[in-house]
């Protein structure tokens, strides 16, 4: 039993830290630290910087242009990037569709898509959920009917993240109605510029536009864009969800936010004294710090197991549940730290180039909105109720 990083891992950490220090643009890091809106170009800028160094696809094996890191190295990399205030690398291409293409795609698909995911030329988004198919994903109804050398797709996807910027969408579609619902699903790659694809924004409670509905009306998709075999898409979908959940503990980000929470508590005043001197508030910070530690060590245990066997197991569900709960606690505490200054809703203050005078302390503006928005973390990528079902069935055998 040894909880310390090895000498090699420490050297790797130093190398990553130095690279991030030298290459992460200061204005971009400031935006992330201050909770400002990130543009398409902000995400892409960091993506390209990492790509140039060969580090954008931390989880990919070398044969596809990845760095071939161990899970522990990937974790170190995530943590260093998060601590420095780097925008997260969007998961839809690198972490989600790419592993599916690598594992189940054909040679042409690998050659065409993977380099473009690496370079950032293709921005990907996800087409899984439908209005009637959330937790019960296999009940999805978007239909793809084969006509000659293409499919004709009709239906509606929803809760699509940042699809307004996307070039491509990976979709689960129904190609068969025989047998169990899971048996007639296929995995299709669709060019967002195809006629008949419409993106409609959904405004979320904090007032931002992060998610969309995507409508498909007689959309012609070449057969060549089918991944793997027809009607085998459910297998690929489950593979993808397993991969999505490994990054979801969000330990690096939560450690960064914990530090920010302490900074705010030092600057806020209560009866004229620093809020951090209030033991009641400080206990709440201590509680979340302890919970982050428990998650961090658990995450490392899962990762070192994963290093031995590759495929993430149902333990990922534990990381998802606790990771999301901790992110929510942090966002809630951060909002409570600023007291009545949670009330002002100055939307323009989230723009990095806004030069107006802030209302209240300069860190206040995004905090209530982040608390509202982070209710999503226990809903998305398999709600926490679904994760607990997985734990009950896969780990406990209930």
């Amino acid at each position, binding site marked *: 039993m040894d909880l310390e990083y090895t000498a090699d891992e420490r050297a790797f950490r130093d190398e990553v830290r130095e690279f991030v220090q030298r290459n992460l643009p200061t204005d971009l890091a400031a935006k992330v630290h201050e909770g400002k809106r990130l543009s398409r170009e902000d995400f892409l800028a960091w993506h390209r910087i990492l790509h140039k160094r060969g580090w954008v696809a931390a989880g990919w094996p070398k044969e596809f242009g990845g760095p071939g890191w161990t899970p522990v190295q990937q974790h170190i990399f995530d943590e260093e990037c998060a601590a420095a205030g780097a925008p997260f690398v969007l998961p839809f291409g690198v972490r989600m569709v790419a592993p599916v293409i690598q594992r189940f795609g054909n040679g042409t698909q690998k050659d065409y898509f993977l380099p473009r995911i690496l370079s950032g030329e293709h921005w990907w988004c996800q087409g899984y959920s439908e209005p009637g198919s959330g937790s019960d994903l296999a*009940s999805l109804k978007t239909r793809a009917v084969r006509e000659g050398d293409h499919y004709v797709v009709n239906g509606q996807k929803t809760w699509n993240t940042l699809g307004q910027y996307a070039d491509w969408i990976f979709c689960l579609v129904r190609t068969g109605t025989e047998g169990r619902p899971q048996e007639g699903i296929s995995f299709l790659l669709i060019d967002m510029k195809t006629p008949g694809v419409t993106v409609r924004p959904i405004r979320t409670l904090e007032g931002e536009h992060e998610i969309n509905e995507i409508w498909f009306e007689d959309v012609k998709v070449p057969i060549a864009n089918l991944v793997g075999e027809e009607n085998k898409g459910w297998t690929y979908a489950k593979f993808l969800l397993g991969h999505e959940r490994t990054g979801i503990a969000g330990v690096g980000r939560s450690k960064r936010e914990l530090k920010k929470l302490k900074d705010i508590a030092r600057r806020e005043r209560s009866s*004229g004294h620093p809020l951090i001197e209030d033991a009641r508030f400080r206990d709440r910070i201590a509680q979340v710090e302890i919970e982050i530690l428990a998650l961090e060590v658990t995450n490392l245990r899962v990762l070192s197991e994963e290093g031995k066997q590759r495929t993430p197991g149902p333990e990922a569900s534990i990381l998802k549940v606790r990771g999301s709960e901790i992110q929510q606690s942090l966002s809630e505490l951060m909002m409570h730290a600023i007291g*009545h200054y949670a009330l002002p809703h*100055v939307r323009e203050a989230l723009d990095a180039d806004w030069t107006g005078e802030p209302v209240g*302390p300069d860190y206040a503006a995004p905090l209530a909105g982040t608390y509202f928005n982070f209710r999503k973390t226990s809903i998305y990528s398999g709600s926490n109720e679904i994760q607990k079902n997985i734990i009950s069935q896969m780990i406990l055998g209930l």
Partner: protein
Amino acid sequence: MDFSLAEERRLLQDTIKRYLGREYAFDQRRKRLAANAGISREIWKQLAELGVLGIGIREDDGGMGGDAFDTMIVMEAMGRALVVEPYLSTVVLAAGLISDAGSDAQRAAWLPAIAAGEKLLAFAHGEAAARYAASYVETRAVRSGKGWKLEGTKAVVLNGDSADALIVSARTGGNVSGREGISLFIVDPKSRGVSLRAYPTQDAGRAADLRLNGVEVGDDMRIGAEGQALAFIERSLDRANAALCAEAIGIIEAMNEATLEYLKTRKQFGQPIGRFQALQHRMADMTIKAVEARSMAILAASAMSSADPDERARRVASAKAFVSQAGRFVGQQAIQLHGAIGMTDELVVSHWFKRLAMIDVTFGDAEHHLGRVSDMILAEA
């Protein structure tokens, strides 16, 4: 012991519910908010005609009479309908303060006008460095000729931008967090030296930060005895928190109804999701919280007629702590059980959620009030 509503209160409840159902449905509210921020003069006029703006103001002051239970009925209905008009600021806080502590001339000048819907007021007490501490006041008032000169800043003054007058707390003596030495002044926002930074709030209301830069106020604008205002301020904050508890239970119960309906109608895995025991138990917990929260809101309203300020404070603090915690739980779970649709701006659920979160941080959050009760335990003999 009698927990039933008296006949006239049932009538008031019917009236306000019917009125808001007709004029303040979610879609109407959305349209009106897009057109004018924070207050609709039309709605305000109608509320005056219904007599709602005179509740808690004595009949010989031009009001309708009534006590905290009547206010509770109004606030509960306003919570459910997500009313953004400045009822709490003008009627509960300002009229309450003037009723409790105002001179005959001040009562005559303001209370009938408030009840008639002709004047709006706001209470400018909180400060950035105070957090929620009622006695922490940095703003100063010094004697100047026959009146006073005010200097300082006030944070998050609810409805400060639409107010015809601001009731400002300022220190005329004592140390910065001392119980003695706080006075109250009625300030005309158009006076020289007053500047307001107004903004929308997360729950579609309005507030403002206030800067007082050598503002001259006549001595006749002082409310109550010099340096003795804290007891009145505390009573007002308790009254406001009791009202906020009532508003919160209106929302909590509405959210529970909407969530229950969703559990019965939303189908996944071939059945209504309400068939899943994990969700049934969650809904049961939400129901338990709602029932207890209502009990605490009743306790808070009843405490407002207590002759003992310590008992009143302890009960209201207990209620606000409990109701805020219940609001967090029910709000978060209502969104969770709705899933992603519960996070959309389109659904009323997300708006209730935001309002509950803001009620929590208005005039002391759950932990602040828990702390007050905890300190009172320490002070027990």
